[in-house]
């Protein structure tokens, strides 16, 4: 029988939750890296026992952890290696240095600050790790201040794909309330050169040449809180999702508005439809139904909790516009948690499982595509990210 392994990053460590295909009984492992913020943890599709984790701290900065045994043991890539002349630099697995070389870097010295002045680019942390679909040693990292990096040696060294910041709109990028992070990286199984990313608050971008050049794909987004609501960049995209079989279809939870595109981001349409509020952070797609999508509506940008104290996932089976509330097993009174942008995931089992974590420390599972929910854990630290692996 298949198994699932849920990778949970929290404000104070990482947790690994495992179950069989029924998804009723769970084993909880953790905390790993106790006391550290684990922004994101994800496994390699090419080698499911290879896991990567972004471990951060306001005191000690960024650490990258890697496991080759499904999370039982961890190491900092290159961290054990004594430096020697001509060898791979040791201790560089957490070294994210923006590319300023004449050959590949088009250095941008500033982006827009909260007060509209220009501010230098400064590395703060890794928000998202996206392992390659085919090579366990290749991983993409979305970082704050916004940029995308890639490793091809199992996270021992990282190099910026500088064409993104070199696009030319960087001076118009501005941090959201949580910082200027590159939080979404979507790889395309049918085209290894195509990558979609999203930045808060710059918007969505696409490369069709493996990351050398990028274009903003924000036409159709409308953000009334910026000077030009239809600007090319400056939109606060909270998260994006796509079904692996659809190369051109993306779904987006923007600051306000749920959006979709059917032409790889050339034009977006709003599909908020009958949602009670279209503010939120997460969005995801059913594993087997490319037009079935999930969001968790949040009251507003100033009140980051569900409407009326009722935690409700909304599902659309029509690719948006028509939404139904999913409530069975979720608290329907006095619930004032948030669900952060990387804290929802789906498994690949025949009956698609849907998972999400809350800032209250709960991780919920629905083994039947959202019809029924149950908590896996109640009392973890605030959940920052949730990923799930479906294992043989």
């Amino acid at each position, binding site marked *: 029988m298949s198994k699932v392994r849920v990778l949970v990053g929290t*404000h104070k460590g990482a947790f690994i939750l495992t179950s069989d295909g029924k998804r009723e009984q769970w084993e909880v492992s953790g905390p790993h890296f106790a*006391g*550290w913020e684990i922004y994101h943890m994800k496994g390699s599709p090419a080698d499911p026992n290879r896991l990567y984790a972004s471990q951060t*701290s*306001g*005191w*000690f*900065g*960024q*650490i990258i952890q890697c496991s080759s045994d499904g999370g039982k043991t961890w190491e*900092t890539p*290159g*961290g*054990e*290696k*004594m*430096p020697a002349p001509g060898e791979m630099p*040791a*201790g*560089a*697995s*957490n*070294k994210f*240095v923006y590319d300023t070389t004449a050959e590949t870097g088009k250095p941008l010295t500033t982006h827009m600050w909260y007060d509209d002045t220009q501010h230098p680019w400064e590395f703060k942390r890794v928000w998202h790790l996206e392992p390659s679909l085919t090579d366990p040693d290749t991983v993409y990292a979305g970082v704050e201040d916004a940029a995308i990096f890639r490793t091809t040696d199992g996270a021992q060294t990282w190099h910026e794909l500088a064409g993104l910041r070199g696009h030319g709109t960087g001076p118009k990028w501005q941090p959201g309330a949580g910082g200027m992070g590159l939080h979404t990286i979507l790889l395309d199984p049918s085209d290894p050169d195509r990558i979609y990313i999203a930045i808060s608050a710059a918007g969505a971008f696409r490369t069709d040449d493996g990351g050398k050049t990028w274009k903003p794909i924000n036409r159709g987004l409308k953000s009334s809180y910026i000077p030009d609501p239809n600007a090319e960049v400056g939109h606060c995209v909270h998260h994006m999702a796509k079904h692996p079989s659809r190369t051109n279809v993306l779904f987006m939870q923007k600051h306000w508005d749920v959006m979709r595109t059917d032409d790889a981001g050339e034009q977006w349409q709003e599909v908020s439809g009958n949602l009670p509020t279209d503010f939120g952070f997460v969005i995801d797609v059913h594993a087997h139904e490319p037009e079935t999508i999930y969001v968790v509506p949040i009251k507003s940008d100033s009140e980051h909790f569900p409407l009326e104290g009722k935690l409700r996932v909304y599902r659309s089976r029509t690719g948006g516009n028509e939404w139904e509330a999913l409530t069975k097993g979720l608290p329907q009174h006095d619930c004032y948690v948030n669900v952060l942008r990387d804290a929802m995931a789906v498994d690949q089992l025949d009956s698609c499982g849907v998972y999400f974590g809350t800032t209250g420390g709960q991780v919920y599972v629905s083994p039947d595509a959202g019809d029924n929910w149950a908590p896996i854990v109640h009392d973890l630290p605030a959940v920052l990210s949730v990923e799930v692996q479906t294992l043989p």
Partner: protein
Amino acid sequence: MIRIVLPQHLRTLARVEGEVKLEVTGVVTQRSVLDALEARYPMLCGTIRDHVTLKRRPFIRFFACEEDLSLESPDSPLPDAVATGAEPFLVVGAIAGGA
């Protein structure tokens, strides 16, 4: 032999218990001590000082002999008691509250 006391999270990261003891050649300064520390424990690179600028991270402080040495030049000689191993060089995570 130089004695270094690391904060708990960095001891865990470096997989050491108690004090770290290192040989430092030449003049014993913040820079030479941290160079030797990072060479022995590469996973600590970037956690105490910036990878590129080598400046002390904002919430890290250095103490020795009951004095705060954080604002001293990284190339100033450390007290003789540190250089002889009589007193440890303390790397301290600032008490800064947080969530």
